[in-house]
């Protein structure tokens, strides 16, 4: 990963700094330029504390890469000493109790500045709507809204910071030249693996969300059981699964690499399982960790193959899952269910093919887009379970 030099203007001063491509603008301001007035709250574009002006437009500096600010003019809260409008806002914030701890204030001031100059006729309702992207945990917003309304209604000074024309970005080197040579160095997905050594307890999953699914097969229950209980066969149905070891405590350790659109993760997991050959059922409890995002999934799965009276068989799955870490901040329950369905359809199709003595269609598998991290880990567990009857 080549470091790059970024030339930009910060608070009126030209700056040239070498930085990593992954450095976002907020870190660039804080760590390279020591402009710590820009605050970082959520670092995922929700809280608004890091809002600064880039080319005169309010911008989330935590989800704006410094590298994309080449040639830009950045103005952070430190850059308004001589700005009459910002002085009026500061004064109003002070008078109306528009801040207490002050953590959100740099972002609030930038957003407030933008409201005053862009929406001169805004009423309090509109101000609240415009402020919705800046979170404050002290004031209850009343003082902030009052402060901005006060400035709006009392002949606000002219805004000196104004949106600039968007320019075409010039680059001396073609993208293929600068990125082509180094890109194949590493696969970031495979960069790090941490296999959790422990598994969760049943009681720790008591309040966790559940997901139940059923898949039908036009085959006898024995055929399906023979596939899902044959380690080699079922392994070929799973996305990127692999068993690494069995510990002395008879815990299975393995991993799976899964993807969902741009989301790529390498989960490593430990699971304990019990199988009931007579009832064609099984129980799995385990824990998976995505080493790079530090997300953790605890889960439990009960599954059963049932022979249907009208012919064919049914595979029922009852899952309980608890997700912690970045992935849980990101995921929404509707997504989890949708993705679980997609992966189940895929696995079911492969099981079906194998039970008929055909090869599972791996080309469709690798191209399949909607693979769930959680569902995959569950399915990975099933696989590992069934490997070691």
């Amino acid at each position, binding site marked *: 990963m*080549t470091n*790059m030099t970024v030339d930009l203007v910060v608070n009126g001063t030209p700056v040239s700094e070498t930085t*990593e*491509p*992954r450095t*976002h603008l907020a870190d660039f301001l804080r760590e390279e330029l020591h402009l710590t007035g820009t605050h970082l709250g959520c*670092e*995922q*574009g929700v809280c*608004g504390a890091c809002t600064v002006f*880039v080319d005169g*437009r*309010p911008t*989330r500096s*935590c*989800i*704006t*890469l410094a*590298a*994309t600010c080449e040639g830009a003019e950045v103005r952070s809260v430190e850059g308004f000493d001589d700005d009459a409008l910002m002085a009026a806002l500061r004064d109003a914030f002070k008078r109306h109790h528009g801040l207490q701890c002050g953590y959100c204030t740099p972002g609030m001031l930038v957003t407030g500045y933008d409201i005053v100059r862009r929406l001169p006729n805004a009423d309090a309702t509109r101000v609240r709507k*415009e402020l*919705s*992207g800046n979170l404050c945990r002290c004031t209850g917003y009343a003082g902030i809204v009052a402060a901005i309304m006060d400035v709006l209604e009392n002949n606000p000074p002219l805004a000196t910071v104004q949106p600039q024309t*968007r*320019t*075409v*970005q010039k*680059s001396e080197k*073609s*993208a*293929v030249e*600068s*990125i*082509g040579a*180094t*890109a*194949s*160095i*590493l*696969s*970031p997905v495979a*960069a790090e693996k941490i296999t959790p050594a422990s598994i969760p307890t049943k009681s720790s999953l008591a309040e966790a969300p559940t997901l139940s699914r059923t898949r039908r097969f036009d085959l006898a229950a024995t055929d399906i059981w023979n596939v899902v209980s044959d380690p080699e066969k079922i392994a070929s149905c799973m996305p990127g699964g692999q068993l690494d070891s069995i510990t002395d405590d008879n815990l299975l350790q393995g991993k799976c690499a899964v993807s*969902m*659109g*741009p989301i*790529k*993760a390498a989960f490593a997991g430990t699971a304990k399982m019990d199988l009931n050959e007579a009832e064609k059922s099984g129980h799995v409890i385990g824990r998976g960790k995505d080493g*790079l*995002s*530090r997300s953790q999934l605890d889960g439990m799965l009960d599954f059963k193959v049932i022979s249907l009276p009208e012919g064919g068989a049914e595979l029922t799955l009852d899952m309980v899952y608890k997700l912690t870490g*970045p*992935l849980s*901040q*990101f995921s929404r329950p*509707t*997504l989890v*269910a*949708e993705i679980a369905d997609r992966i189940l359809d895929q696995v079911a199709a492969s099981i079906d093919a194998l039970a008929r003595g055909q090869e599972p269609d791996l080309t469709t598998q690798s191209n399949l*887009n*909607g693979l769930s991290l959680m569902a995959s880990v569950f399915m990975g567990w099933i696989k590992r379970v069934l490997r070691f009857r």
Partner: protein
Amino acid sequence: MKPALFDFAVAQSLSDAQSALLGGQNKLVSGNQSLGPMLNLRLTRPAGLIDISRLPELRNIEEFEDRVRFGAAITHAEIEDGEFPDPTGHWMRDAAANIAYRAVRNRGTIGGSLAHADPAADWVIVMTGLCATAIILGPEDNTPPRSLPMEDFFTGPYSTDLGPDDILAAVDVPIPGQGARWAYWKYTRQVGEFAKASATILIDPAHNRTRIAIGALGRQPALLSNPEAVLDGKQSPIEALSEAIPDQPANALNLHAVALSRALEQIKESKEFSA
């Protein structure tokens, strides 16, 4: 919190960006407003990012007799502010004005949002509801870009028909016929949040287009097969949705039925389109 290491390059041209994708190993980025959070949380770890946000080819607008072509790197704020003509009168502007927050709209782009294909994103349902078409540039030289209706472009959550070397270059938005009407309603628990349920209605008699789209399903939007029955009151929203999205749990079904009911109320009061 830092993203995993990646390389970065600014594309000089569309073909440069295409070559630099290296078969999907690297990823295109424009506003970074949806990808950024994923990068910071390390949920996505592309080997490299190719910035296409300021490519002139993607910042264009082209007006045809029956449609307007929006370059993929046009920002939500530019549409909100009317910096580019809105072929639908003000429907696109209204939708743009309610995407996330102004700071996000200042950088986020229409093409980026569509290519990212978050099931709850505004443009995903609005462009589907407006019968828009994706304009996709394939890797072969001298081949005209292919057009794909939005309902075929999205294939699942965060998933599109784009191949590893494809670029979503633009989106074609049809100009509504005289007298056309439109409604878009979304449910969010907080202003600017991702929608939990959403619905659009398009009634365009001049073009014989009637469309009801249901969004924020966790996958691509669903189109009602018989929108007329709902519009004529022969089928209630909940009946129609029980048919169209039977797999959704009861609470989600109800939420979407409310979204559709609100859109139905909205369309009764909506002004007719005139060019």
